[in-house]
């Protein structure tokens, strides 16, 4: 570099130093852990002693592990709460966007579950779902419905958790939708009104498309978060629920790794889960691109 002046060289060093910080951080806190996890997943390791390389055995074992697939199925089941939750929160956001009395109080109330401690919420819902004394069944009893023993029933334990998840997530989605709705230009609605559009048509052709980016963001983040659900499950149904019917993937991974000290196998399952989440997210991005439009 004969052409570079001394000044340039000094600048170059500084530049390198600045670049080094994030690169080093990435190597230390991302690349190394990922590499280590990949290696761990190909070993037999109890977390205490030496690791033993066993190639792809853990991955082969995973395909024959009925509880892994059962827990995957349970995790997918929990996701049916996502569209329901989004529809409800959009409806709520539209309601909250109107000039109704006590509006800011209501907005706050819906947001409280979001900022509450997850562990505390899980315990409260566990009580609410108690078969005889729980609030849920007392409420149902007013209508003459004899509620099930929610968390102890293979049929109802999963829906019970879905209901709780919807309740917990409502406030967050609602706030984002509210912001999105408020940023839709009034002129679009006015133009539609001039063309004689009714309320439903305005919602379907203006509001819904305009909040699409928010919907996309919420779906992607909630699918990722939903794939990693653990705390609620572990507190509300310790042991994985009746006949393992509430165990989520992460719960199963945690049990293998930390209860049975099978770190290698646990890591292999965690990597499998990570890959599946990646694939699902890529598919979502692709679908979103195909359906997206540009507003001139």
């Amino acid at each position, binding site marked *: 570099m004969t052409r570079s002046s001394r000044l340039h060289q000094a600048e170059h060093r500084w530049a390198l130093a600045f670049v080094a910080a994030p690169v080093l951080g990435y190597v230390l806190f991302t690349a190394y852990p990922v590499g*280590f996890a990949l290696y761990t997943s190909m070993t037999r390791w*109890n*977390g205490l*002693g*030496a*690791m033993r390389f066993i190639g792809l055995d853990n991955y082969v074992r995973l395909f024959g592990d009925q509880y892994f697939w059962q827990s995957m199925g349970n995790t997918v089941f929990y996701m049916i709460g996502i569209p329901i939750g989004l529809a409800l929160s959009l409806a709520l956001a539209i309601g909250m966007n109107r000039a109704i009395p006590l509006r800011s109080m209501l907005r706050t109330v819906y947001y409280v579950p979001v900022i509450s401690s997850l562990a505390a919420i899980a315990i409260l819902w566990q009580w609410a779902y108690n078969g005889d004394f729980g609030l849920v069944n007392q409420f149902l009893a007013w209508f003459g419905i004899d509620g099930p023993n929610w968390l*102890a029933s293979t049929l109802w334990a999963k829906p019970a958790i879905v209901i709780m998840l919807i309740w917990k997530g409502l406030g967050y989605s609602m706030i984002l939708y509210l912001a999105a709705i408020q940023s839709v230009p009034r002129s679009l609605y006015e133009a539609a009104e001039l063309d004689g559009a009714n309320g439903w048509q305005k919602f379907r052709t203006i509001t819904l498309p305009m909040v699409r980016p928010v919907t996309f963001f919420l779906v992607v983040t909630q699918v990722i978060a939903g794939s990693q659900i653990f705390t609620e499950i572990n507190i509300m149904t310790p042991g994985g629920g009746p006949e*393992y019917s509430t165990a989520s993937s992460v719960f199963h991974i945690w049990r293998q790794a*930390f209860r049975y*000290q099978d770190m290698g196998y646990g890591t292999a399952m965690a990597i499998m889960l990570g890959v599946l989440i990646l694939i699902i997210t890529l598919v979502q991005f692709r679908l979103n691109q195909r359906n997206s439009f540009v507003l001139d």
Partner: protein
Amino acid sequence: MAGGIVAALVLAGTAACSAGSSTDDDGKLTFMFRGGEDEKAAYQEAIDRFSADTGVEVEVIVTDPDQYGTKLQAAISGHNVPDVFYIEQASLQSYVTSGILLDITDLVADSGIDLDNLWEYGVDSYRYDGKLQGTPDGALYGLPKDVGPFAMGYNKTMLEAEGIELPDPDEPLTWDEWLDIMKQVTKDTDGDGDIDQWGTGLNVQWNLQALAWSNGADWTNADKTEVTVDTPQMAEALQYIADMTTVEGVTPSSEQQATLDTYQRWMEGELAFFPVGPWDVSTYNELDFDYDLIPYPAGATGEPATWVGSLGIGVSATTAMPEEATELVTYLSADETAQETLVDAGIQVPNLRDMAAEYASGEGTPANRQEFLDIVEDYGRPMPAAVTYGAAWYDEMWTNIQPVLDGKQTAADYLAEVQPRMQQLLDESNVQAEQAAAANASE
């Protein structure tokens, strides 16, 4: 959460290669354990005396019971293993094969402690010969912190009120006699049309062992290589428990149990029979009714059986002061004053045989405390998974058992179905044990 797992693995990984030195050479020992106020107080006394006698200071780390396992694992991963720490029976084999625990056989022999005055079961629980745990000639990797015999108790006040002859403390009831008593006490006492007093309510996970063993069944063969749950004797024991609820109706229904578990119902005085461990005694002595202990009702063998738990105290393989650390273990396990404090608190039976004789003969509740000692000395056994390398094979038995307890599947059908799955997991865990041992040996 997945992020958390990765992070934990990284932390663990940086330390995974080989075990390093644990103590800084400051002449201090660290002792990590879990427990409540009573344990803390009792151990502090023993530790103070140890320090006075040996001049070695001890730094004590106490954790919540829930936190202990995680904290210990983190300490091990971080090359910062406490010199002395609690060790579960069930983890002994993996800790030994991973080179975490020190073989203290000779050091204990040199320390002058009288091992014969400790319960044989308690000491043998921490012996391991590389293949089997609990064998009398295996190397010693710890001493018992306590032994926990699981006895059967009955509500004396209730049986007397019902005019039923009290069960013999020396002669176990047969299953038929037991069921007969339970049928007599199961009734509606306040006339509101709902049954509010029952024979018992047994959690299958903690009670099947007693019934199965005394009926001649067992979980595995002696070598711990074959799962043997698919026998008629096991099926009979499991069916007996299930039928108590679904056929005989001498327990609260599963819905009723989900509402208020049977432990609470026993304490409310609603149940005639309920298991009692030494750790329950301080609580149960405060109850409104009298209770006493009996041998577990016996199945086909005519002999009672039940399990004995234990928690041990071990020494780190990397401690800088093995002699002192081992001596501390002997103080914690066998110091008379510390044992007295723990026994007086009503949370355990004495570790020392001579003290135990005194414990059983004096005044006190429950009257038949001797039953606890009989279990430890005579007919108690370790939990099936306490002496295998892993517990997954054993847990598998309970995962899908509910239909049997609900009367929707017969015990025999279920056991035939679950045996192959348990066998597969046990094979797996035995392979793991071999591989872990091989990996550490080759290091």
